[in-house]
């Protein structure tokens, strides 16, 4: 059978890769090619070179090396028993395509993943080869994200980290029961074992660089993972708990959530109802609360209802504030940073501006209005030089007055 053209294969292998949510290219070591050799640069903040109509950033060439797979995970469009068209690229073809796109300023680099062909080790070697060609033959200084295969040799995973800015392994499902049912070829201990060994390799490499300036870097943009939301029975509280464990045990840089979405030729084992995209958004917000707002995992879980689900109509920070009304109002002229970060409607940036401005003046409501997006949302929770809200406990309608009225519209395509 003749090989389909590069364009056809690119179509198939990009289509196969789109269920991975991550496209980040931020937070890696700074590099450039100003010396006149090589190609590319990374300057801290990643760049989204385009946006697709699904609102997602296109920063990297995100493709699979092949969508042939010996695994049969029910949620996956590339599973062995699926009827999708199959294709494969050679590592050289992937490297050439990356360079051609990069020169035209289409991308920040490459995010390469793969179905498992022949064996885990063979697949991992092919992924590494593509990264090696880019780094050694093209002296490519852009961003590389390699998906690693948990079942592969630790020694291979270690090599991947030397070429890649980021390595990732997907935990796939938040619960072990979900994994056993939907990804019967995968195992939680194997996945977590591989994450642990990458985690310690990252720590060791950082440590070595403190002592030896030329020690090799290992995945300077860290390790990330992805969880599918809504394909198993896990509640939001379960997912938040699982993420917190992953962040602390494996020092992950990011946990991505991907609301399970319909795929062509879906397995009959999958649930019929897809979760609303808003659920995914609320999980990202709760993730932010833990990473940037000083919320402990159990505090985020307190924002959920009795069934462990976060409200869809209001964000988790507001939900928490409504439940713990005695923590408010907060005096913007005196409260510590941690207390200000708990105020619904105040972001990290606004809190920084408030802290800086209040050294110059006593803040009035009008001043706060200049520093925030919406005064309406903030007002019930703060005290300023000229403003004090009526007692919050008296306001049974507070939630209704703050919830966005058009929240349902966002789910127009949600079912």
């Amino acid at each position, binding site marked *: 059978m003749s090989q389909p053209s590069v364009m056809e294969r690119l179509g198939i292998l990009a289509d196969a*890769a789109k269920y991975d949510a991550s496209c980040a290219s931020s937070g890696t070591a700074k590099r450039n090619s*100003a010396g006149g050799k090589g190609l590319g640069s990374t300057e801290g903040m990643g760049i989204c070179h385009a946006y697709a109509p699904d609102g997602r950033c296109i920063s990297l060439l995100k493709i699979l090396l092949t969508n042939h797979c010996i695994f049969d995970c029910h949620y996956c469009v590339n599973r062995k028993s699926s009827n999708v068209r199959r294709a494969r690229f050679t590592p050289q073809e992937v490297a050439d395509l990356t360079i051609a796109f990069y020169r035209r300023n289409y991308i920040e680099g490459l995010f390469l993943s793969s179905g498992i062909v022949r064996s885990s080790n063979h697949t991992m070697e092919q992924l590494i080869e593509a990264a090696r060609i880019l780094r050694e033959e093209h002296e490519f200084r852009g961003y590389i994200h390699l998906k690693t295969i948990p079942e592969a040799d630790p020694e291979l995973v270690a090599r991947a980290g030397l070429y890649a800015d980021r390595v990732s392994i997907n935990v796939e499902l938040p619960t072990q029961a979900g994994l056993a049912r939907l990804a019967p070829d995968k195992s939680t201990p194997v996945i977590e074992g591989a994450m642990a060994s990458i985690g310690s390799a990252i720590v060791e490499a950082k440590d070595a660089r403190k002592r030896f300036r030329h020690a090799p870097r290992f995945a300077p943009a860290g390790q990330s993972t992805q969880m599918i939301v809504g394909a198993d029975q896990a509640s939001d509280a379960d997912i938040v708990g699982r993420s917190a464990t992953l962040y602390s045990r494996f020092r992950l840089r990011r946990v991505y959530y991907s609301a399970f*979405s*319909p795929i062509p030729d879906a397995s*009959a084992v999958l649930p019929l109802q897809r979760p609303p995209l808003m659920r995914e958004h609320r999980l990202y917000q709760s993730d932010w609360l833990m990473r940037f707002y000083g919320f402990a995992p159990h505090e985020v879980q307190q924002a959920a209802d009795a069934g462990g689900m976060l409200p869809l109509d209001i964000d988790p920070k507001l939900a928490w504030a409504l439940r713990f009304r005695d923590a408010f109002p907060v005096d913007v002229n005196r409260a510590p940073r941690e207390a200000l970060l708990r105020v619904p409607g105040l972001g990290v940036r606004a809190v920084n501006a408030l802290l*800086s401005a209040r050294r110059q003046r006593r803040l009035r409501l009008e001043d706060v209005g200049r520093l925030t997006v919406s005064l309406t949302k903030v007002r019930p929770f703060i005290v300023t030089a000229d403003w004090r809200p009526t007692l919050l406990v008296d306001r049974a309608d507070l939630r209704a007055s703050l919830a966005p009225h058009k929240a349902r519209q966002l789910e127009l395509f949600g079912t």
Partner: protein
Amino acid sequence: MRVCLPAPDDNEAWRTAARGLILAGIAPDAVSWEEPGQGPGDLFAQSPAPIPPPRPDAPTVRASKAFLNLVRMALLHRAPERFDLAYRLLWRLQGQPRLAEDAADPLVRRLDQLSRPVRRDIHKMRAFLRFRSVAEPDGSERYVAWFEPDHHILRANAGFFVRRFAAMRWSILTPAGSLHWTGDVLEEGPPATRLDAPGGDPLEELWRTYYANIFNPARLKVGAMLKEMPRKYWKNMPEAALIPELIAGAQAREAAMVDLGRQEFGPAPDSLADLATGIAGCRHCAIGCNGTRAVPGEGTRRRAFMIVGEQPGDTEEMEGRPFVGPAGEVLRSQLQAAGIDPGQGWLTNAVKHFKHQPTGKRRLHQTPTAGEIDTCRWWLDRERELVAPRLILALGASAARGLIGRTASVQRERGLLARQGDTDIWLTCHPSYLLRLDGAAREAEQARFVADLRGFAQALAAVFHHPPTHSSKEEGELTS
């Protein structure tokens, strides 16, 4: 006092002038700032007077780091009042050294509002500028881009492209001027037009293919896209031409996927009799539609064991009962030999209809596909709930798939295969496999089959301590 700056993005000249003005004690209201192309436009107008010398008592000019950070970007904005606003802030800063940190001050806020779109413009130029390759007379390649910035950011952004594409030769053309990188020197050129840039690049077709396929039609969020990539950028991005058709087709594509995947099995059956009616009418896969009759399970239910085969065969389909053909005979006799009474358990199949190939008079067995087994698993799951067995014996890889969701290898995984809740699932080969072997191979395989059944019998005894009590035989011949 008129101050004329040499270029709209010359921050250095503004700083020198502003410093001189402060030292000379000239208040903001007395200064008017001009930039090329935005002054009175009169060629014969008087050229501006030089800035007066510093007053003898002038203190040193103060400019905090926060101030410099704030105005560095704001001064690149296209708004003509930016120089004046920045000078007003510098003037007040002399008495209030930390003023620039007070984001609640209206003037600081105004300058901050000017700096944000500039920062965004710089970022979007790095993101959305597209190079097109052009062959040079000497055979080398030059990469040329056309971009239309909103603010005076071209020079400020040059460093980024030099650091990133140092080994390439490239040009960036804009309506306000152009940049040319020769490989080691950056040269500035005059304003250009879109026609000076190449009209296409053969790679763009590949890029568009990538863009169309990385888009997930099941998650359409046009607003989120427009917020980050407003329409004004689209005309210079080769992929953007696809956006209208991708949006238009998305809902249809999603609906088609959902329809294909839809498995409306209706409410779960409450009894095994309901389940038998259900499978008889099931048309969810090709086997269900092949005109054969469905074969329900039979036997003893509640706290018993369950034996799951692949699918009914020729005899089973005709009689409407499981395990009554040649393979069933092997199974029943070997179960007896291992000390298991087949009548004490529940016998059924992973797939409820008979998949076959009609060849003349005979109907030749065909293995069901993984997709067909997965579809029929809905019925098997309901059947397991109703029968509630403590132990299940899977005969062959297809049965295992119906139970645990993956195609297990009998040779490697025979014996205890999985534990789901308090149900243990055992695996051995399908008895029809033995019928296809001859001689020594058959004897060897049969011995292993018998050994597996003995193991299963021991597990049964361990779970129940004593042989299962004679509970009522339920609905033995459901279909008759």
